[in-house]
């Protein structure tokens, strides 16, 4: 009730139509995935070493270009082309975002996405017949987990993820950039979710969660953001108790995400939506944005719906979709038990709460 009141006040201040008011639960699109946003494709590439070690790359592609923004609040980021997304820079449209494991080494995966898109003729014309596919990127830290430290994504991971990209269902859990991810003592992974707003705007999110902080109460298993879950998401009660963060993981973490919408946004608006979407990360993970986290959230707007956007509605929905994507990631993640490599999963710890 308090939430609804607050949202109504916000909507009133913003002068927004009441029909845009934020309601929970969100109504997902048919795939409950970021690919419900027309023009958005997702491809994963995953590598396993046979000893429980996994890493990978996820490419989120906007073949027709998307206006993009970013917010970078984690204290240990590894990024590419984020300066370009500042509102005052000249280029407003990018073609893909690469999320990858491998720490800063994994930024190489973006090279493969870039050349893959170039071969398909996707890019910004520069001069002399050259095009430049603009591929922003963020990475997470997973090297050395049940694997040699050099087991990491390279350019071929990006090329493979790009080649695998489709607008269909998106696999979640131990795949792509989330393959080697961990989250607050359990297995992390890839999650995605979407929401269809009453005015036809679609908002989707995809996340690779590799957080030092936890997403659920360690005793009850209740997700901190459980109150945001939709009818097609797992629903658990939202008892909120501060988690004890695993201090060993505090410096080796990162949650990276992309939110997308079919609304038409300016670059400044896309940056604002990214900032608001980041609140969904904060609601679902405690602690978030720590010194060792590379937490980075990108926003893409494909622009099919050309009516004036309600930024608060889109940003709020993006935050909720991101919270849901995080909970779905944690539930989709599989435990790893290979030899001496043992990583518990949420569903292993709380089987009665696990809904996939």
């Amino acid at each position: 009730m308090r939430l609804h009141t607050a949202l109504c006040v916000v909507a009133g201040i913003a002068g927004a139509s009441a029909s845009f008011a934020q309601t929970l639960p969100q109504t997902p699109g048919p795939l409950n995935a970021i690919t419900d946003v027309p023009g958005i494709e997702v491809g994963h590439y995953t590598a396993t070493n046979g000893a429980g070690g996994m890493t990978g790359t996820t490419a989120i592609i906007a073949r027709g270009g998307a206006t993009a923004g970013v917010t970078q609040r984690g204290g240990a980021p590894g990024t590419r082309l984020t300066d370009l997304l500042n509102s005052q820079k000249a280029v407003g449209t990018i073609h893909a975002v690469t999320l990858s494991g491998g720490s800063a080494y994994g930024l190489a995966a973006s090279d493969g996405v870039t050349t893959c898109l170039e071969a398909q003729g996707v890019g910004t014309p520069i001069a002399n017949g050259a095009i430049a596919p603009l591929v922003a990127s963020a990475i997470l830290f997973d090297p050395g987990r049940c694997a040699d430290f050099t087991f990491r994504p390279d350019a071929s991971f990006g090329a493979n993820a790009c080649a695998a990209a489709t607008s269909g269902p998106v696999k979640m859990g131990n795949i792509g950039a989330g393959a080697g991810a961990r989250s607050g003592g359990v297995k992390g992974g890839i999650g995605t979710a979407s929401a269809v707003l009453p005015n036809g705007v679609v908002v989707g999110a995809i996340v690779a969660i590799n957080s030092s902080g936890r997403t659920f109460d360690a005793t009850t298993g209740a997700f901190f953001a459980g109150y945001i879950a939709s009818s097609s998401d797992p629903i658990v009660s939202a008892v909120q108790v501060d988690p004890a963060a695993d201090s060993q993981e505090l410096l080796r973490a990162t949650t990276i995400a992309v939110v997308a919408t079919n609304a038409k946004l300016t670059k400044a608006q896309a940056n604002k939506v990214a900032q608001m979407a980041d609140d969904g990360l904060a609601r679902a993970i405690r602690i978030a944005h720590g010194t060792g986290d590379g937490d980075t959230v990108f926003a893409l707007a494909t622009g099919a719906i050309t009516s004036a956007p309600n930024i608060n509605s889109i940003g709020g929905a993006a935050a909720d979709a991101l919270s849901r994507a995080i909970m779905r990631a944690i539930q989709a993640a599989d435990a790893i038990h290979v030899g001496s490599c043992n990583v518990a999963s949420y569903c292993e710890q709380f089987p009665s709460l696990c809904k996939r």
Partner: protein
Amino acid sequence: MTTCRQRAALLLLAATAGSAWAQAPGPNNAITDVPGISVGHYTGADAGTTVVIGSSTAGQGVGGGVTQRGGSPITRETDLMRPDNMVETMNAIVLGGGSAFGVSAASGVMRCLEGKGVGFPVGGPNVVPIVPTVTTFDRATCGGPPASRPDFNAGVQACMAAAGGAVAEGNVGAGTGAVAGGVKGGIGTASVVLPNGIIVGAIVAVNSEGTPYNSDGDLRGASFGIGNEFSVLTKAGGKANKVPASLPGGPLRSGTNAVVATNVALTKSQATKIAEMADDGISRAIDPAHTAGDSDTLFVLGTARVALANFGDEASVVTQIGSAAGDVVSRAIVHAVLAAQSTSCQQSYCDVFRSACKNGR
């Protein structure tokens, strides 16, 4: 007992006096005059990459900062350099051609440094080298798309080639395919040793939309020369010559990227402030600078051979280094333009403004 303000005033006086009498370029007049700095180029057919490695006395990273004012940046790891973020030290900076593709050279530099055990420690023997990067589009390609662009292996080779001592200028490394306004651009470097022992060096890859020369054909940055540094210039200008138009600008088409280094230990915040002041050296030597189509990004490294507190209070020393860095950057830009050589489709400054350069150069 002097107050801070009095000491600052004395320092300013000393600096002013130094600029008039005592300051001189280092022995190589290059960024490598800063202890701990090595430079390597990879030069391809019409594009290349340049790596600047900053090394502490322990062989590890050094404090750094960045300013990013061009409107078309293609960058990597600049978020990490913000003072609010955790990692305090950088291992190398890559200046590259190859536009969005050329960023891959940084991965080769990372691999090269990892092989030497250089990088941010992440447990056991494992390191993650911190290699912030900026690239620009190579315009000196005779009307076609670049036939070559720096890749992973280019980064490995540039890193393996990195050395102290003299630094090649002109059509090398990140300057291979560069154009400065309407003349051939390239790599330039310069240094200064201040009377108090602070050393400041810069290396610049000039690929600007704006021109390094004015409407009289004179190089804008030449007045910052120390002694007879630019004696090749006749000061007769190029009035008799036809001043070429700058190549058409546009998003992602150009950029002047630079690294400034000093032997003083710097925090990220101090390095960031110095970067902002050093960037003024681009503004003075190129006009217009920082256009919508420019990548213009300037990095600063402090190799920590001397403590900043040795030279006075923080604000004064940062200002002194930043001021000196601006002049060094302007001089490095002049060196780049003078060292650049004509290609089959892009004339050099000295070939365009023959009366401005002795012996055509």
